């Protein structure tokens, strides 16, 4: 009766859709804030460059939003199509934030429409900027609400199960579960960080390609500054996420750290390789795991020896964790050096190789997002609802999931290629230099 194939393909399809959606969703959460900051700086300094920056980002944003909406609609339906048993159970307890998310979308969608089509309608630019607030708030709250649902999957509460029946349901307690504060904060901060570094990448790329326009330099400086702030925030909150795991999902932390035996003074294992249960070639920081888990070098950290084999998540999540943390550290360092260097006129921050590193920063941040989600989700396995429902009991019983997987893979390839082609064509056929000239000619005067 049990259909192993549809479980396998349902997993694959969920992984595929979510991994794809999250790229566009992250940009969707972060970029409105960046546009807002740029437009605000532009108005305050009365600097046309920043206004144009906001304008061009907004135009590109339309493309990523479109793909975000399309893939988001897909995942929203797929949750019921692929995991009907889970959604039936979860619907009873955690439907509230899911429902509130649709209002956040609604709000965002309405004002995004208005914002995009009213650039020159207001005498006072500040009024136009106001329209962006609901867009940014709507996007951020979408992330908050959906992450609450995910937090619930990691630490379900707000109900009791008596004889297989759900009783004493309290949607509010379910929302404010122990995983929620760190998870929501980490997701939102990392989305802001990633968006800033993606935009920095673009500015860096233009400079690398030989443009020497001050416009790109302003863009780069602004985005690196924002990126630095949020990469620090991301790392700090990431540390709290580790402490949450130590308390509530110790096997996830232990698997991510290859921490096999419960012990105090636990070291942090970086990278390395597993050989018959032995960790080899790893880089160890003494006591760092105890500090990450409990802020105390001698604290005892639960190891994998405390768990039965079936409930231990796959050990490869160790690499996912390491890559994510490395990117976090690296981007913080890179942006500090860049900002210091720009202030103190260290010439090497303007060299080609340094700019290449900046260009790499955007893709790296997106990689960290993917790694982080895979860590969080794979690390929860075998559970779909931690301690309550196994992933294998949640999948659909219908047999055509493999076909759907092929169809959706095709769709995502088209969307990925389409969005990249359209974005690059959009900016190449209308370079900043020309747009700036056009706008000045239109105004019949010199700006600034």
């Amino acid at each position, binding site marked *: 009766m049990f259909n192993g194939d549809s479980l396998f393909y349902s997993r694959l399809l969920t992984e595929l859709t979510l991994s794809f959606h999250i790229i566009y969703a992250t940009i969707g959460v972060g970029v409105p804030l960046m546009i807002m900051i740029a437009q605000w700086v532009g108005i305050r300094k009365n600097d046309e460059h920043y206004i144009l920056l906001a*304008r061009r980002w*907004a*135009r590109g944003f*339309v*493309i990523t*939003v*479109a*793909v975000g*909406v*399309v893939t*988001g*609609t*897909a995942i*929203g*339906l*797929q949750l*019921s*199509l*692929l*995991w*009907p048993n889970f*959604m*039936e159970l979860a*619907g*009873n307890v955690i*439907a*509230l934030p*899911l*429902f*509130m*998310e*649709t*209002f956040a*979308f*609604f*709000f965002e*969608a*309405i004002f*995004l*429409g*208005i914002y*995009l*089509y009213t*650039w*020159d*309608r207001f005498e006072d630019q500040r009024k136009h900027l106001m329209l962006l607030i*609901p867009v940014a708030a709507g996007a951020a709250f979408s992330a908050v609400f959906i992450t609450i649902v995910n937090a619930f999957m990691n630490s379900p509460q707000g109900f009791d199960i008596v004889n297989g029946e759900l009783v004493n*349901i*309290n*949607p509010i307690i379910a929302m404010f579960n122990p995983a929620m504060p760190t998870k929501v904060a980490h997701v939102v901060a990392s989305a802001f960080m990633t968006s800033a570094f993606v935009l920095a990448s673009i500015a860096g790329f233009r400079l690398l390609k030989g443009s020497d326009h001050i416009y790109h330099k302003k863009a780069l400086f602004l985005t690196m500054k924002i990126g630095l702030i949020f990469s620090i925030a991301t790392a700090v909150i990431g540390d709290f996420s580790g402490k949450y795991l130590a308390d509530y999902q110790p096997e996830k932390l232990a698997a991510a750290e290859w921490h096999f035996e419960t012990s105090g003074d636990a070291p942090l294992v970086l990278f390395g390789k597993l050989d018959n249960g032995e960790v080899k070639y790893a880089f160890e920081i003494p006591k760092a795991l105890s500090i990450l888990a409990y802020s105390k070098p001698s604290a005892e950290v639960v190891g994998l020896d405390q768990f039965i084999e079936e409930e231990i998540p796959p050990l490869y999540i160790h690499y996912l964790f390491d890559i994510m943390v490395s990117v976090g550290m690296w981007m913080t360092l890179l942006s500090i050096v860049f900002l210091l260097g720009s202030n103190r006129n260290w010439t090497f921050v303007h060299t080609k190789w340094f700019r290449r590193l900046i260009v790499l920063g955007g893709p790296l941040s997106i990689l960290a997002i993917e790694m982080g989600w895979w860590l969080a989700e794979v690390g929860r396995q075998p559970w779909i609802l931690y301690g309550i429902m196994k992933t294998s009991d949640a999948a*659909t019983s*219908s047999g055509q999931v493999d*076909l*759907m997987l092929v*169809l*959706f893979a095709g*769709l995502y390839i088209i969307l990925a290629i*389409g*969005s990249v082609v*359209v974005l690059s064509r959009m900016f190449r056929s209308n370079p900043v230099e020309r747009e700036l000239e056009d706008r000045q000619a239109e105004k019949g005067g010199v700006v600034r």
Partner: protein
Amino acid sequence: MNLEILGIMVLWTFLFGYVIVASVDFGAGFFNAYSLYAGKQHILTNIIQRYLSPVWEVTNVFLVFFFVGIVGFFPKTAFYYGTILLIPASIAILLLAIRGSYYAFETYGAKGHKGYSFMYGLSGLFLPASLSIVLTISEGGFVSMVDEKPVLDYWALFTSPLTWSIVVLSIAAVLYISAVFLTWYAHKANDKDATELMRRYALIWSLPLIITASGIIVELRDHNPEHFANLLDLWWVFALSFLLFIGTVWLIWKRKHYGRAFGLLTGQFALAFFAYGFSHYPYLLYPHLTIYDSFTNEAMAISLIVAFIAGLGLLIPSLYLLLRLFLFNKDYVTGKSDPY
């Protein structure tokens, strides 16, 4: 009124909203593609783009609202419909993806790419077809329980005349609603050619609409006698709806009050849609699932309703602003003020 009925009313109302706004959107895409094919593109494209571009995402959210809301209020639907709809719903997602990306890609990138416009136009016909399948399935007779799991009988579904008449009705309705709306919109934009063309389409599509709508009632008599009997009890609502239909066609015919014609049309569809909904009561899926045995717990229901009311407080003013800026704004509609 109990919570179950309140919940389904909220969802049904949003579904109605989706039917109207999405019909305008789907139909517009089709007319756009058709005019491209018939070489009349210059007449329509402008009007269509102007209306659709700022609002397509809003249209999509109506749908998202419905399917998220139904799982919230009636979690068992996730189990029943989630299991059986894998293929039809996945196809609908693909079609929606084509449409969603069209605006973004077309507006900036591959401007005037004909293949894409055609796909887009066709997706506007296939979407109502694939979405309306859900209504057909809900009439019962196509789903059986095997090992306590619902299984959909595709063969029975695709050989049933009921399926095909609902498909035809949905397409006719989309084209009719869209044509009436665009007649009004083109008229407001002072675009004589477009108004005339859309008016013709509206009149053409009114006939198939009313024929299929009546046909379905007849077919239900054999397919689902219980539902048919409930429909007959509400005959006067359908009669009223028919009168409104006559009113719309008459106004369009006389080239008068296009705005009012669209208002009558909305009334016509609202009456029919809600009468259909009431006659379906209490079933969500004949005979397996009713709104009572699938309903969520009371705590969740109340919190959803509170969230809904708070959400409406936020949405209604914003929607009003959107309509005022784009639908009722003379400068925007006639193209005097330039979008970015």
